[in-house]
């Protein structure tokens, strides 16, 4: 079981319970002054009870406490110990309000806020309301001729309902029905429904004795105001019989009213806001997206037919028809684009959701760090796929902690270096077409090249011969290796034994890239590049040795044409120089051990994964297309290098490259040389 899933499930179920509670309360609210229906009260009680159990199990103490008080109050109400007066109903309405506030906090991982204070005040208020009503009870149940075996399986509430009916002089019957095991649930449900039209079903007891192998008997304790003849009529279709239990009488006294405490504004936590939002499991959106993906393929097919029809000339479709078909295909294309955009928008949430949370944490860290730092934040309105946003908070927090803790110097050091006393840490997000760029930067000392080199040598991450030849960029990238840290002692702030390798891993999972820009004395900036969504991807369709593949465009940095003569060989590896940066070069055909085709020039698809870059050479570029990746069949699932398969619209499945896997595969020999980690 993953860590995250039960939390989501908890929130989903708890929200559902609270929404149910608020619906039931609305009815209770509308019927103030009347005696509440027992079934309704019981179902509200059950909701509060379930919420208490659920939240206690998942460790949400405040919700548990409020739900507990609510449950006690509802219990007292349904057991007739207190009256449903205005003060109590007001308190219930406020409590449900506060519960939804607490759930909102829980969903944002917050622990403090006005909703929490309101909840505490309300719990105390409800308790004080309850403590004012003493319970006058004498037991009419004893007068009933019920056998102990029946009395002993009743819950306290069921007992209460029996008592109430006795007090009001309602006739009690034991209804007996025997059903076949095959369909007893439907038959019993039908019987119960029929009975409820004329009576109250207090309890349904499965009978242990009368059941043979294929039948099961039930005793229904029923309170019926109608005549016995009427009861017989209702029971007849079910072959059920009835026996009289008793025929036999004082309402609970009103509780003195207590003033309702001032609980502050509840408008921010209104029930309306809950009702206007639809919670949707993101997997349902994935399904919709997959359906759109399939439609996109159908569209491509129709488009091809339309083109084919036109090309066929007079011998084929009538030219007017062909024109019509082409026009409709274009209209379909536009609508599908809208649909796809619409679904993507639903998944999009502003980064502000994470940024706000980070800002609070950062401000706390700043107070604790004792450094003088200004924190700048912008781009909270940039939107990203919800799934990506959720997973960003940990890596971003880590980078911010690093910046505060290691990046910015002490005020004295800064003054000595001729800089302003106050340092600057920033968190920026910008939207760039299909990508979002997030920068976490500081104006601190910058990464110390020499120290990274020493540390890498000491830890055996690089060899003594290789270290001096490494360029600054290569050196900087060493910080992403597991176990790397230039700090002697673990700090209060970022020292959790978690390094930048974790940040890298998190980003890889999101198909993101990470770059470091760092100048000595000027500071360090981590630049994260993330795709807008993982649901639908734009792919580059390429060909190698006659096979067609799709390369997810979010991993593609650029495409360059290279003549074989421009390649260099460094340490038995082919390398390519792209604007001064040396990247490993490999032909896709080589990777997949396909027969190599002689080419005049390579099309090199420059791909990246976290801090790694690699040139992947293909024989031809066929174009770009939106694709929905489908998982590979079980037989192929273990083949490395493929993320899945997709259909390009010509009814031919092609494999989608798993760029992260390919890059790690390529980087492995080098890493192995850097020490066996």
């Amino acid at each position, binding site marked *: 079981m993953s860590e995250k899933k039960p939390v989501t499930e908890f929130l989903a179920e708890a929200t559902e319970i609270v929404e149910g509670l608020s619906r039931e309360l609305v009815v209770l609210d509308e019927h103030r002054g009347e005696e509440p229906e027992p079934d309704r009260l019981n179902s509200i009680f059950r909701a509060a*009870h379930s919420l208490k159990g659920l939240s206690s199990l998942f460790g949400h103490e405040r919700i548990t406490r409020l739900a507990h008080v609510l449950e006690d109050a509802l219990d007292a109400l349904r057991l007739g110990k207190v009256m449903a007066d205005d003060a109590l109903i007001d308190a219930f309405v406020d409590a449900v309000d506060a519960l939804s506030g607490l759930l909102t906090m829980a969903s944002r991982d917050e622990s403090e806020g006005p909703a929490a204070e309101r909840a505490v005040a309300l719990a105390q208020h409800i308790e004080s309301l309850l403590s004012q009503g003493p319970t006058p009870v004498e037991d009419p149940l004893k007068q009933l001729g019920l056998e102990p075996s029946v009395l002993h399986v009743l*819950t306290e509430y069921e007992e209460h309902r029996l008592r109430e009916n006795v007090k009001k002089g309602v006739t009690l019957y034991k209804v007996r029905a025997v059903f076949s*095991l095959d369909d007893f649930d439907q038959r019993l*449900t039908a019987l119960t429904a029929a009975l409820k039209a004329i009576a109250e079903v207090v309890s*349904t007891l*499965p009978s242990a004795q009368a059941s043979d192998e294929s039948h099961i008997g039930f005793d229904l304790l029923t309170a019926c105001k109608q005549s016995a003849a009427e009861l017989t009529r209702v029971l007849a279709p079910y072959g059920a019989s009835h026996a009289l239990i008793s025929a036999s009488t004082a309402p609970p006294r009103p509780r003195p009213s207590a003033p309702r405490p001032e609980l502050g504004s509840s408008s921010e936590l209104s029930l309306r806001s809950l009702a206007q939002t639809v919670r949707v499991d993101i997997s349902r959106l994935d399904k919709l997206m997959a359906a759109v993906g399939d439609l996109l393929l159908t569209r491509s097919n129709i488009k091809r037919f339309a083109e084919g029809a036109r090309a066929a000339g007079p011998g084929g479709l009538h030219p007017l028809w062909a024109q019509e078909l082409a026009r409709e295909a274009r209209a379909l294309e536009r609508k599908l684009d809208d649909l796809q955009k619409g679904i993507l928008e639903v998944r999009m949430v502003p980064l502000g959701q994470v940024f706000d949370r980070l800002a609070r944490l950062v401000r706390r860290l700043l107070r604790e760090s004792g450094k003088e730092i200004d924190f700048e934040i912008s781009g909270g309105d940039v939107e990203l796929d919800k799934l990506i946003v959720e997973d960003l908070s940990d890596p971003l927090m880590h980078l911010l902690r690093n910046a505060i803790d290691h990046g910015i110097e002490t005020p004295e050091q800064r003054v000595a270096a001729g800089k302003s006393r106050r340092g600057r840490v920033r968190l920026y997000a910008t939207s760039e077409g299909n990508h979002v760029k997030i920068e976490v930067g500081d104006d601190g000392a910058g990464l110390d090249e020499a120290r990274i080199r020493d540390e890498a040598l000491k830890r055996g991450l690089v060899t003594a011969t290789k270290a001096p030849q490494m360029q600054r960029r290569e050196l900087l990238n060493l910080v992403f290796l597991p176990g790397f840290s230039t700090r002697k002692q673990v700090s209060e702030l970022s020292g959790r034994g978690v390094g930048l390798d974790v940040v890298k891993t998190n980003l890889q999972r999101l198909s993101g890239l990470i770059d470091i820009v760092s100048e000595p004395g000027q500071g360090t900036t981590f630049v994260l590049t993330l795709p807008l969504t993982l649901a639908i991807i734009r792919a580059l369709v390429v060909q190698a040795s006659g096979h067609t593949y799709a390369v997810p465009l979010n991993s593609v940095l650029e495409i360059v044409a290279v003549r074989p003569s421009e390649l260099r060989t460094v340490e038995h590896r082919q390398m390519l120089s792209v604007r001064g940066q040396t990247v490993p070069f490999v032909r896709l055909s080589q990777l997949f051990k396909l027969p190599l085709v002689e080419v005049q020039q390579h099309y090199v698809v420059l791909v990246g994964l976290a801090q790694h870059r690699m040139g992947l050479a293909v024989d031809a570029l066929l174009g770009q297309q939106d694709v929905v990746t489908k998982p590979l069949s079980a037989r192929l699932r273990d083949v490395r290098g493929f993320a899945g398969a997709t259909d390009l619209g010509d009814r031919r499945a092609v494999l989608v490259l798993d760029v992260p896997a390919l890059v790690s595969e390529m980087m492995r020999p080098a890493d192995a040389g850097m020490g066996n980690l």
Partner: protein
Amino acid sequence: MPDLFKVLVVEDSKATRELLASLLEGLGNLEVVTVVSGFEALKVLPRHRFSLIVTDINMPDINGLELINFVKKNPHYRETPLFVVTTEGRTQDRERGMQLGASEYVIKPFEPDAFCALVKKYLKL
């Protein structure tokens, strides 16, 4: 290879049901059958041979006490250990549950380890 133990979980809360099921499945050599109500429990009881029944008390149709009574009075199921897993409830409901023959009364929130230890004890895992 020993027989697979079958455990019946009767619980109307989805999150709790899944939590119980995953705890039980984590013990290995266990098949967990989950149902959402007393009705459903009555339906599946004759179809399997359960080694353990875990039930909630407060449920919409047949309550947990009624289910315990049914199980403990029925010669086919009488010997099956039965745990009540419920929110710290009325002591009266609890006493009744034990009187009716529940083996253990587990109160939510419970320690997963303690719960698993109880299950192991009864199943002799």
